[in-house]
């Protein structure tokens, strides 16, 4: 199994600012994913990030708001831009379990509060 860490674990930000969340994996992985989990809700996929190509965004999420980088096979960042209180959520990254369908390993999440 993969071990995933995220930084920061939590943050409180002012509206209009941006926050970059880092996701580090202890092994090389092909695909990384970013999810959002609003308070008391289920997880919603934001985008899929492959190394060497642009991220693929799900409906309702755009690159200008959530730019993603994937510089190598063990690291990715998600930026939440021009934040508003509605962006207050837990942001999680995950990686695919190579060779096992529908199985992903998740990081601990970043709890973001926007004032």
């Amino acid at each position, binding site marked *: 199994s993969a071990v995933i860490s995220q930084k920061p674990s939590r943050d409180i930000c002012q509206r209009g600012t941006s926050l970059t969340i880092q996701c580090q994996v202890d092994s090389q992985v092909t*695909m990384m994913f970013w999810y959002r989990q609003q308070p008391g809700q289920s997880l*919603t*996929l934001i985008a899929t990030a492959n190394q060497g190509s642009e991220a693929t965004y799900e409906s309702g999420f755009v690159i200008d708001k959530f730019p993603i980088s994937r510089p190598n096979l063990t690291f990715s960042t998600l930026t939440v831009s021009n934040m508003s209180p509605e962006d207050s959520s837990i942001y999680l990254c995950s990686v695919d379990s190579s060779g096992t*369908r*529908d199985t*992903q390993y*998740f990081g601990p*999440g970043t709890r973001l509060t926007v004032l």
Partner: protein
Amino acid sequence: LAKTTQPISMDSYEGQEVNITCSHNNIATNDYITWYQQFPSQGPRFIIQGYKTKVTNEVASLFIPADRKSSTLSLPRVSLSDTAVYYCLVGAGGYNDYKLSFGAGTTVTVRA
């Protein structure tokens, strides 16, 4: 992706068996059924996966009837630490489609 339906919440007591049933009437031939567990302030964790009949591991059992339109996750002799949200997912099938679609999940509360 096949839509899943599961109870919103379930209560239990320590030492009891908890069974969570998930309905997935539109499951496709290639779809697997996967369950995740999420504790507060943590990311989801893979519990078990199956295609048909019964699968058992050190954490849970998964029962899948022949028509595969539903599945039941069984947690034997639960403890307080099993209090979590449990998600039933049905995949799109195939190793090239990695998207996971999480439903509302079932909040299981175990009481002493």
